[in-house]
C-alpha cells in the first residue's frame, strides 16, 4: 500500500485573552491509500483542530500552526501556496462536517451547491455538472435526485442533508475523505443508514477516510486503525482489534470501561475517570493525563511520554505498562 498522507509533529496554538492555548502538541500519523483511520477523543482534545490545521482551515488569527509537516502525496500542505492548496481541498481531499443544519447556504439550491466543486475544480459547465450532481445524489440514496436539484436545504431532513453533504464531498472523486463527527447530530437509526452508506461508497470508490468521533462504538465497525487523542496528543494508536482487545494507555482503558455495552448481560459498575480534561494553557511538560491517572509514577511528572511502538501495529505514549504497573 502506498502512503498518501504523513503528518509529522503538528503543533497548533490559539491566542486568547487568557493566554495561548496549546490545542495540538506534536501530532504524527500516517495514512495509506484506501485505509480508514479513526481519530477518537473527547471534546477539546484537539482531534478536529489537528485535521483542520493540516488542511489550513484554522482561522488565523487567533490560530496558528507553529510546527510540523503534513505531507500529502509527498508535498507539504502547510507550505503550499493558497492557490495550490485550494486545488487539493475539495478536489483531492474533501470534508464532511458534523452539523447538516448549518453547513449549507440556505438561499442556494442543492443542485447549485453540490455541483459547485465540479465547476471550480474540473472546469465543467453548469449542465454537465448538474447531470453529474444528480448521479452522485442518486448514489448516496436521495430518491428522485434529478427533481430535487432545484430544492433548497430546508426541504431535506437531517439524515437526507447529511447524505447530500457526503455527495458534495465525493463529487470530485477525492482520494481522501475527512469525516468530522458526521453522525453525532443524527438519531441512531439514521446514523446506521449513514454508516452503511459510507461503507458501501468506500468499497465502490476506494477512497481513504479519516473518521473523527468521540464514539468508540461507531469506530469499532468502521476503522482499520484507531488513534486515541487526549490533551492535544495522540496517546495510543493501534490496529482496531488490537486496540479494543488490548488497550495499553490508562486513558483508553478508562474510556472503554466507562461505556456500557448492550451485549453485556451482567450489571457492572461503570469505570469512571475522575476529574476533568486539562485546559491547555501551557505546553504539557508532564503527561497530560497525569492528574486523572491511577497508574502514575514519578517519571510521569517530569516528562511527557512520546508515542513509542510496542509492536508493529501498536503504539502508546505512556511510561507505565498497565499490566504490570511498572515502567516499560
Amino acid at each position, binding site marked *: 500500500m502506498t502512503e498518501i498522507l504523513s503528518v509529522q509533529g503538528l503543533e497548533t496554538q490559539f491566542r486568547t485573552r487568557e493566554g495561548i492555548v496549546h490545542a495540538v502538541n506534536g501530532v504524527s500519523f500516517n495514512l495509506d491509500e484506501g485505509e480508514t483511520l479513526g481519530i477518537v477523543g*473527547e*471534546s477539546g482534545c484537539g482531534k478536529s483542530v489537528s485535521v483542520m490545521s493540516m488542511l489550513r482551515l484554522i482561522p488565523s488569527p487567533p490560530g496558528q500552526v507553529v510546527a510540523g509537516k503534513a505531507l500529502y502525496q509527498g508535498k507539504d500542505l502547510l507550505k503550499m501556496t493558497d492557490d495550490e492548496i485550494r486545488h487539493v481541498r475539495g478536489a483531492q481531499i474533501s470534508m464532511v462536517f458534523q452539523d447538516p443544519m448549518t453547513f449549507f447556504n440556505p438561499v442556494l439550491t442543492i443542485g447549485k451547491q453540490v455541483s459547485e466543486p465540479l465547476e471550480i475544480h474540473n472546469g465543467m459547465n453548469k449542465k454537465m455538472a448538474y447531470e453529474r450532481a444528480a448521479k452522485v445524489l442518486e448514489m448516496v440514496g436521495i430518491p428522485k435526485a434529478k427533481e430535487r436539484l432545484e430544492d433548497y436545504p430546508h426541504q431535506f*431532513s*437531517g*439524515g*437526507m442533508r447529511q447524505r447530500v453533504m457526503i455527495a458534495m464531498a465525493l463529487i470530485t472523486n477525492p482520494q481522501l475523505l475527512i469525516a468530522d463527527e458526521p453522525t453525532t447530530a443524527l*438519531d*441512531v*437509526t*439514521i*446514523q*446506521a*443508514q449513514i*454508516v*452503511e452508506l459510507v461503507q458501501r461508497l468506500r468499497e465502490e470508490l476506494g477512497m481513504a477516510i479519516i473518521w473523527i468521533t*468521540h*464514539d*468508540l*462504538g*461507531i469506530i*469499532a*465497525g468502521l476503522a482499520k486503525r484507531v488513534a486515541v487523542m487526549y490533551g492535544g496528543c495522540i496517546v495510543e494508536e493501534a490496529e*482496531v*482489534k488490537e486496540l*479494543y*482487545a488490548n488497550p495499553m494507555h490508562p486513558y483508553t482503558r*478508562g*474510556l*472503554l*470501561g*466507562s*461505556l*456500557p*455495552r*448492550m*451485549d453485556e*448481560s451482567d*450489571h457492572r*459498575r*461503570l*469505570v*469512571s*475517570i*475522575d476529574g*476533568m*480534561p486539562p485546559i491547555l494553557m501551557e505546553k504539557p511538560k508532564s503527561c497530560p493525563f497525569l492528574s486523572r491517572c491511577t497508574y502514575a509514577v514519578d517519571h510521569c511528572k517530569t516528562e511527557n511520554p512520546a508515542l513509542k511502538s510496542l509492536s508493529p501495529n501498536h503504539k502508546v505514549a505512556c511510561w507505565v505498562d498497565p499490566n504490570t504497573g511498572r515502567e516499560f
Partner: protein
Amino acid sequence: MEERKVLLKVDRLVKYFPINQGFIFKQHSGDVHAVDDVSFDIYAGETLGLVGESGCGKSTTGRTILQLYRPTSGHVYFEGQDLVKMKGETLRKTRKKMQMIFQDPYASLNPRMTVGDIISEPMIVHNTYKGSAMKERVVHLLELVGLNPAFIKRYPHEFSGGQRQRIGIARALALDPDLIICDEPIAALDVSVQAQVVNLLEDLQRDLKLTYLFIAHDLSMVKHISNRVAVMYLGIIAEKATRDELYSHPLHPYTKALLSAVPIPDPVAEEKRKRVILEGDVPSPVNPPSGCRFRTRCPIAEKICEEARPELREVNPGHFVACHLVK
C-alpha cells in the same frame, strides 16, 4: 412476582400542541400529536427507562407527568392521587415529591445565582428549611453529589459540564423527592464524565431509595441503568418490558431495528452483527400515519397495519407490544 407499590401511574396520557396560523385572526389549523395514548406504571424504587429518537415524545411525556404541560386528556396518578385534577396549592405541594433533572447543564442553572442560592431556592419556595438548618442542608447536599462545599459561593460558569449536572442533581434532591424525572441527564456530557454522573445517580438511588424515570436516546446507557424499559415511537409506546427481556427478546420491529443500529464498542462483535437498516425518516407528528404509526418504515407491514391502530397488549407476562403481527 412480589407485590410492589405503584408510585406513579400514567393512564392514557395524551398531549397535543395546537398549531395556529394567521397573524391577527389566529386559526387552529392542526395539532402536533406529541404524546398519543401513553400508559405505564413506575414501581417505587425502580428505574423505568423511556427511550426513543428525537421527536418521539419522550421529553413531553416527562413534562406532562409533572404538569409542566397540562395534558390534553388522560390521568397521572402519583401515590393514587390524580395530578391532572389538582390545581394551585394542592398541586404545588404534591409536586414537591417529584423533581426533574434536565439535559442541558448550561441552560438549566441561572447564571446570576450562586450554587448555594440555586440549591436553597426549592427549600425557600416550599418553606422546608430555614436559616442555618438550610445552610447545613446545602453543604450536606453538595457533599452528597460529590462537590466540595467550599464551592457554595461560586457561580455556574465556574464549573464544568459534569459538575453543573451535579449541581442540578443537588437541587433536585433538596426537597427529599420520591420520584426524579431524568430528562437526558448525560446527553450533553463527555463519555468519561457520563460514567461519573450515572454512577452517582445509581448511588443516590440506593442510598435515598429514589425512583427514576430515565429518559434517554442512548440505548446502551438505558440498558445499564433501568429495571424496565419502554420504547417510544412517534408519540406512542411501541414496546414495554423488563430490561433483560426487551434487550434479549425484542418483539416489535422498531425495537429490533433500533437495537441493531446501536454500535457496540468491540470490532470483533461488530463484524458478526447483522443490521436491520430502516428506510427513510420518522414521519411528521402533525400528520402521523393511520393505523400503526411505524408502518411507513416497517419492513414487515401488512394491510391491517394501515387500517387499525395496534393496542399495547401483553404477549408474555410483563412484556407488552403494540404490533398486529406479533403473535
